[in-house]
């Protein structure tokens, strides 16, 4: 059923629309942030509680050096790639919902 223009404006300016908009965006952002914070804040804990394990040598690197100095960067790319894809889709959905 097509909305009239006035109707559409009502939808956009409704409290419910804004609340759902912010909630969905925040949920996505927090999920992605959690993924990288676990790694970022977990590594010092691993260093603290399992120093021997983290000092294991792999091709000259210690495990913890390899993670922090090299592997962290691709991980960050992965998270940002996922976030951008999802958030563009989310925006397209939001726009379609009110403009349909």
């Amino acid at each position, binding site marked *: 059923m097509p909305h009239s223009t006035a109707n559409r404006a009502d939808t956009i*300016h409704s409290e419910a629309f804004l609340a759902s*908009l912010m909630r969905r965006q925040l949920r996505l952002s927090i999920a992605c942030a959690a993924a990288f914070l676990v790694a970022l804040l977990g590594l010092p804990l691993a260093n603290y509680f399992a120093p021997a394990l983290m000092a294991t040598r792999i091709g*000259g690197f210690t495990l913890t050096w390899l993670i922090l100095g090299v592997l962290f*960067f691709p991980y960050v790319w992965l998270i940002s790639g996922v976030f951008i894809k999802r958030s563009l889709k989310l925006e397209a959905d939001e726009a379609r919902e009110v403009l349909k």
Partner: protein
Amino acid sequence: MSTLPLAFLDGVDPWIFALSLLTVGFTIYMGFRSAKTSKTAGDFFVAGRSVSVGWNASAISGEYLSAASFMGIAGMVMAVGYDALWYPVCYACGYLFLLLFIAGPLRRFGAYTIPDFAEGRYDSPVFRKIAVCFVLFIGFFYTMPQMKGAGTTLAYIFPGLPYWVGVAVVGAVITLNVALGGMKGITLVQAMQYWLKLFAITVPVFVLMTVFGSYGSNLGANDGRVFTAAPAITASADATPAVPAPAPEIIRKPLVEKAPADTAWVSPFGPLTTKAAKAAGLTAEQSRPYSLLYTYSLIIALVCGTAGLPHILVRFYTNPDGVAAKRTTMWVMILIGIFYVFPPVLGVIGRNLLPELYAATGAKGTDKVVLELPRILREHYGVWGSILSGVACAGAFAAFMSTFSGLLVSMTGAVAHDVYGRMLRPNSTPEQRMKMFKFAAIGIGGVSVLLGSQVEQLQINFMVGQAFAIAAASYFPLLFMSVWWRGMTMKGAATGMLVGGVAALLCMTVINLNDLKIVDLKAFWAGHPLLRILCEQPAIWSVPLAIGLMIIVSKATSKDIPKDIRMKMLVLHAPEQLGLKNEYIQEHQAGAGH
């Protein structure tokens, strides 16, 4: 008269000199060229908002990879080992934070500068003034390490030149450039400077790895085997014979006395994070909790600080739309991530091959390892070593020149656009504002040079960390809370930002005064290691403090929440296809007319 210029040319390597000069010349040329095309005020402030994703991503990366990234990280990894790796990682992760929580909404809201956002979100001109002050505070703190980079590099190229001359020369060149070209001029220059920097760090790394062994095997040589048996020899005399390397292909020179031992250097919680506890006479086991605290506070400062750096944020406005802003951030992440893998490699190789740098301080210390290391190749490959070192110098020039010009634009923008255009002379014409932009650039450039000439003894990367700590406690809470919590009031935002930011600023000042030996706090710090850590890395308490104050004060003043808050939040969060920004501007202007 003729001997003076020749005197400081003594001992100058012609290749290094030529390649550095080429970089500087190219930067100036681009500045002049774009001066012809930068006509409108929009060109000066946000490059006409029409920069493509590729250019913009390269330019942001070019601006972001400062002297700290190019020289400081390698120097710090060499000086303190593993703990320094948090810097590149958090510089990159901070970008992710920016992308997840701030970049999109800020872009949709649309404003020239962060102070614009602060005023627009809270309808408060007072708040604009507070925000402007922080642009300047953070900016100056961030220019100091760039200036140190400039001084160090010039002192390296011209061995006879005093540190401050380098600072003054580079400061003058950039200031001229910014005054002529504004934002549009530097976008192009910075984009090219990113690629120059990447080239200038990767080529020496690959060549050095081919000659002296890989990243892993150089790191592997630091296993304590070589030096544990002979600490007395390394400490006693300079006549130490070359110690045989553990792995046959890795060359390792003996460490000097000042260098940290292998185990401490290669493991987490090393010299950087244990300094305070060690000065207090605690044992290794006792100091571990302190190190963990230091590490977490450092992480918070760097991650939140990136998300609050004013000169980076302003770049999001140069994208045509929010989708482009997000794509740009993705590319920035990839570009800076690739770059950040390399500087630590130089730090590691530098520890093996140039341990004598540990003994020196100031411009002659580990901060110059990136420049000095390729020169070793001269013994093997003659002139190619010089060329490679020249490439590294060119990269260093690109690094501090691009970051400093970006900072200068954002600080100058704040003064010309906010202080002059909005506060002093609201009715000034665009021509007057552009003229003011040029005057302000010269004034701020001058102050930066003065500040920069005072900090020779401070480590580049450490100073950048300080700028981040201030940004983390002021702008980050402001932006994050303003975007996601509609209950924020101007009073809440201002209180949180001021208290958090000023607290961090005071801590930095105390630490720097002590490090520069103006105030001696050694005895006090020895008795209070915890206080020293919380002062050196304040983010762990200052960020929550700022956010907490924002919430408490906003709740107390909830009647001041802007009346059209729903519309504001809608503009911040609704997809741009809905065209709410124009609607908002029209409504706002109609409202303001009454």
